[in-house]
């Protein structure tokens, strides 16, 4: 927990991340001394199965730049995370799927819980109802640690912009004053509590609704109707809007997968919309378009994503509605030169559309960030991986414009 955040609605007991990392390491080594099980843990004759992942990351404290904070107000480079996945096969076509997650051991979140129904046994067609995986983009559906090539999360899915769903700027200048302060933006309309901004797409929280997924041959499609928005997934209703999202992907024979996705949902809460004139309230949606590519052949794995987000926001002092555009993209690659050793890196950027404030100079509504991260990984066993790397960030505004940081991580899955 960074300084200055105590007393907020998110303040919780937070043990030292370093101590937690040691705890995670001990938790890793003990069970890993035995063989990693080939079958998942389970009972009820295999009807209930579960597995999990422990990830402990350690890096120097970042109380000034907040480059790696998530919407849980935690630093992804200083975190101990436990994920437990479970599945209860209720009947042949129906199962209950869930994930329990704790970060820094301060509370337990039911981050996913949904019914999965396969109506046609011969078809890879699932209907999922509940708190479901996100459809837009590709990164958010991957396991946090094992399938993440580096230690940090991509900017598009983690970096906190200055926008809040519960508070609105009264003018363009109000918004521009918060550039580079997504960890604690404050606005005159709506909630006056201290709270973080939102990322373009949340990777750490999932939305609630219904989703259909279908895979046949080389084509995979998904469509969902949920309650929140890409940046603001919700369990409880905060507004009357609905989010539509869809993705289509083609798996090419050469090892390449290309996906396109889109989503549109209302991201601003009704409580704050009630404070703006009625004719402005409909300007409260977020639209996201994305494309993702994965290419994995031999000892190489290369991925890239590009997301473009448009936030509609009813800024009172503006005569016409100006949508807030943002885009973020990354390219990442991993090369494994030995069964135990690998090197990986990610280059990424998040940028924002320009607005005209009273100064008359076009200015991006939030501060663009560029990030480079490189990691060397070592597979100690099949299920234990150690990583060490360096992440460097550059930002055009905010208290800190540039910051580099080493980070190490221990991963264990079972």
């Amino acid at each position, binding site marked *: 927990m960074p300084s200055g955040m105590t007393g907020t609605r998110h303040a919780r007991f937070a043990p030292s991340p370093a101590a937690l990392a040691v705890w995670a390491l001990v938790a890793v080594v003990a069970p890993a001394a035995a063989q990693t099980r*080939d079958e*998942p843990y389970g009972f009820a004759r295999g009807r209930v*199965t579960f597995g999990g992942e422990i990830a402990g990351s350690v890096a120097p404290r970042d109380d000034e730049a907040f480059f790696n904070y998530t919407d849980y107000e935690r630093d992804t480079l200083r975190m101990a995370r436990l994920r437990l996945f*479970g599945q209860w096969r209720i009947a042949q076509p129906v199962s209950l*799927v869930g994930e329990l997650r704790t970060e820094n051991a301060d509370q337990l979140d039911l981050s996913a819980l949904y019914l999965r129904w396969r109506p046609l046994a011969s078809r890879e067609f699932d209907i999922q109802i509940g708190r479901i*995986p996100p459809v837009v983009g590709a990164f958010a559906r991957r*396991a946090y640690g094992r399938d993440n090539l580096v230690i940090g999360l991509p900017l598009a899915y983690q970096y906190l912009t200055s926008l809040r769903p519960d508070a609105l700027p009264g003018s363009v200048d109000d918004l521009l004053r918060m550039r580079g302060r997504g960890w604690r933006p404050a606005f005159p309309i709506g909630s006056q509590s201290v709270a973080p901004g939102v990322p373009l797409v949340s990777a750490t929280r999932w939305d609630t609704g219904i989703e259909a*997924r279908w895979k046949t041959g080389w084509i995979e499609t998904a469509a969902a109707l949920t309650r929140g928005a890409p940046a603001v997934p919700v369990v409880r209703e905060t507004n009357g809007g609905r989010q539509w999202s869809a993705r289509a992907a083609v798996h090419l024979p050469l090892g390449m997968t290309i996906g396109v996705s889109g989503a549109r949902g209302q991201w601003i809460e009704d409580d704050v919309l009630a404070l703006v004139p009625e004719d402005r309230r409909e300007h409260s949606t977020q639209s996201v378009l994305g494309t993702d590519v994965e290419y994995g052949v*031999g000892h190489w*794995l290369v991925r890239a994503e590009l997301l473009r987000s448009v936030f509609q926001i009813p800024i009172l002092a503006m005569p016409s509605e100006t949508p807030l555009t943002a885009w973020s993209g990354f390219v990442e690659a991993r090369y494994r030169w030995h069964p135990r050793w690998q090197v990986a890196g990610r280059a990424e950027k998040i940028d924002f559309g320009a607005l005209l404030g009273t100064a008359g100079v076009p200015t991006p509504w939030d501060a663009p960030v560029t990030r480079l991260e490189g990691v060397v990984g070592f597979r100690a066993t099949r299920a234990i991986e150690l990583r060490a790397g360096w992440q460097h960030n550059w930002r055009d505004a905010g208290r800190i414009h540039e910051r580099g940081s080493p980070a190490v991580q221990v991963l264990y899955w079972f």
Partner: protein
Amino acid sequence: MVRPLAALVLAALAVAGTPATVPRAGSIRGQVVVPHTPVAAARPSVADLWTTRPDPVDRRRSVVYLDSAPRQAFEELRPGRAKMDQRGQQFIPRVLAITVGTTVDFPNSDSTFHNAFSLAPAGPFDLGRYRPGRTRSIRFDRPGIVPVSCDIHSHMSAYILVFNHPFFAVTDEDGRYSIPGVPSGPYTLAVWSEIGRPATRKVTVVDGDTVEVNFQVGRSGS
């Protein structure tokens, strides 16, 4: 239980009965009973489509072998080629026993990419990701146990046992095995199973006879 079978490595050194001439042969057969056959079902995933259990399940899971072998056994090794298929997100067979110098082909018979690898000291390798219809191969030059996994599908696993003599057998679906052509003499017979500790029995092979040796393997070994 995966553990380096020191006996496999030591077999080259701890040569039993070292007869000066080729002895006449008998055979060893029997059954290995294991209480539980692990099924490599996929771990639950909250982000993927429903994955079903593999069908059929390969139940050939144990290997019976001579812990020490006649000296001439090492001179008669004829390494060749073996195959470990990748089909239905399983390695088939799940347990493969070969002699030192054998090249194992890993065809990808699925519709998805696979990436077989092992971190075993006896034969670390990483075949990389390759597409359906392709085959990649690796030669095993050191005796020992080589657990094999898929880097893409965490529930896929298999074992390759590499011997420096030819006196071994993988059990069949019912746990039965037969090791023919064993030169006469006293031996230590061992069984390896992925879920239990290796167990051993003293046996004496008599020319023209068949010795029956059964094993009961438990989780803690027996």
